[in-house]
């Protein structure tokens, strides 16, 4: 067994959850689209870590493969996200998510 298993899985779990939660909180309390994007990245990376840990603990490569998938997808997502932020900035000259509030009720 790799030395990784000397750390109990719960630690990873708690750590990743905390990381994830930080990401969530970041998304919730920030109004800057870029920061939110970064917080989401944080959430996704915490999941990646968790998956890798699970994968290592259960000796199943699928989890790690999935991590690659996620990274690819996340990259695509970020690309789109940044494009959108640019778009928004062009029209509103702001990247505050609450400035755009025309569609409601």
């Amino acid at each position, binding site marked *: 067994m790799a030395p990784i298993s000397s750390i109990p899985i719960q630690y990873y779990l708690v750590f990743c959850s905390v990381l994830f939660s930080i990401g*969530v909180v970041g*998304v*919730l309390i920030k*109004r800057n689209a870029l920061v939110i994007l970064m917080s989401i990245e944080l959430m996704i990376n915490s999941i990646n870590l968790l998956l890798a840990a699970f994968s290592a603990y259960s000796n199943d490569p699928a989890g790690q493969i999935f991590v690659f998938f996620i990274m690819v997808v996340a990259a695509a997502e970020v690309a789109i996200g940044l494009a959108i932020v640019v778009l928004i900035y062009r029209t509103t000259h702001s990247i505050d*998510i*609450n400035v755009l*509030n*025309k*569609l*409601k*009720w």
Partner: protein
Amino acid sequence: MNAILILIPLFPLLGFLILGLGFRAIPKKWASVIGPGTVLLSFILSLVVFFNFHDFAASPTRFFFPWLHVGPLDIPFSFLIDPLSILMLLIVTGVGFIIHVYSIGYMKDDPGFNRFFAYMNLFVFSMLLLVLGANYPIMFIGWEGVGLCSYLLIGFWFRNHEYNNAAKKAFIMNRIGDLGFLLGMFLIFNIFNSLSFDHVFAQAKSISFGNPSIVAITLLLFVGAVGKSAQIPLYTWLPDAMAGPTPVSALIHAATMVTAGVYMVARSNILYVLSPATMAIMGMTGLATALFAASIAIFQNDIKKILAYSTISQLGYMFVGLSVGAFTGAMFHLTTHAFFKALLFLCAGSVIHALGGEQDIRSMGGLRKTMPKTFWTFLIATLTIAGIPPLSGFFSKDEVLVKAFEFGHLLWLLLAIGTLMTAFYMFRMLYLVFFRDFRGSDEQKHHLHEAPSVMRIPLVILALLAAFGGLINIPALLGGNEGLSKFLAPVFADSFSIMEHETPVSNGTGWLLMSVTFVGVVAMAVWAYFRYAKGKHGLEPDDTSRSFPVRMVSNKYYIDELYDYLFVKPVLRISRFLHEIVELRFIDRIVNGVGNLVVWTGSTVRFIQTGNVGFYMFIMILGIILILFLNILI
């Protein structure tokens, strides 16, 4: 025989259809043939039936076609021919024909001439159904049919809303009675499982005295009779019904329709005999009506209204007669009443006709000279109704009185007082109309004329009938053969065998009673003569202040006002309440409220959708936490 039988009502129906469908196209001449002609044909056929009446003795119920048949309920369209219905048949078609003829003259100038005869024929048709029906529903067809015709004819001059109101009132009051009749029928069906006279009466024989169901049945049927025969408390329509043309009053509201109640009770005699309670109520109602109406009649000034109240009063007599078991007496009085009251109305019609529509007796007077024939016939009628022997009214009334005496002396006394009142108001009217000087306008005076012969001849015929009609049932006391009693005996045979019989009055008492009333009547005639023919009474205008009791009576005891206050106004008020408060403010508001609530919720809830991404995320996180919390930690 069946063919003849069905033709009796069919002829008037045919007349109605011809006149009704082609009412504008048919010239008056034809109408004046068709209208009375069809009734005459019915009358002739009725006579045929009368003379062949023994053929019916074996099977009095004649079936024509099945009408209403549902499971246990079987109502065939069939007629019952027995002495009772034959008697009514003759009265309806006979008197009906005479009045039809009279109407030719009376309605001569009316634009609704054809319509009038159509309605009259329809009335005769309905009345014949009522009389001939062999079961309650068929009788009810006629029962409601005559109500309809009465409605149509009272409101015949429909330009005038007052007339229309009178017509509507008549119909609605009748309907109140009809509801009683209907419920009575239902109860009969429940108890006897049949509505045919023969089945019901046959079964009734074996039912004990005072059976509550029978009491209920008879009371309910009596409610019907009260409505139709204008007894207390449903009598107020009849005086108003005088709005109709006078022949209508004569035929419908004197001779035939209003007596339907009496006929119905007589027809159901066995049921009534089984229910002493009903008999008592009926007797009290009849007595009260007789006195009450007579007292009102004394103070009326409208010639037709006096006759209307007189009719109500006389109907009261008939009901008293029925209630003391004098079925024959009641039917006898019904018959003579048909003659003399029809005659009185027709005479009144002649007078009104001659005066150009004037009906107030205070504006008449002295017509004896200008309308001698009318005067004489009117005099005969007055004497008849007052009960002067040997005119028919004397015999018929006497028969009721004697029976009442057997039943109770007080009853006799009260009825006798009623008789005196009758005599008084009749003579008052006679004197005010035909004696003294003419009090109308000069123009009226100028136009005064005796009625044309087409109107006079019916008067004469009726006068003869009124005078000598009593001959059909002269009591044994006076050496008569009691023809009508014997004729009708089979109809009432079962009842007589069940009924408790009072000891009949002795001959001496009979004579005594007769003479007492006779003397009283004569006294009344004399008193009225001095008061109205010689004295100055009877011309006061309505508004002169009189003593309270007199004011009460002359205003008909304010019964109309009372009903208005007790029933009409409250119903209208309730109607308004239900519509404006219950319906619109309550029920509908709840219904709309549900809708509005939805719309309101929708319009409120949508504000959750703030358009703010941060808020959305916040709610979503709340949702996630809630779901996880509820599902995992609990």
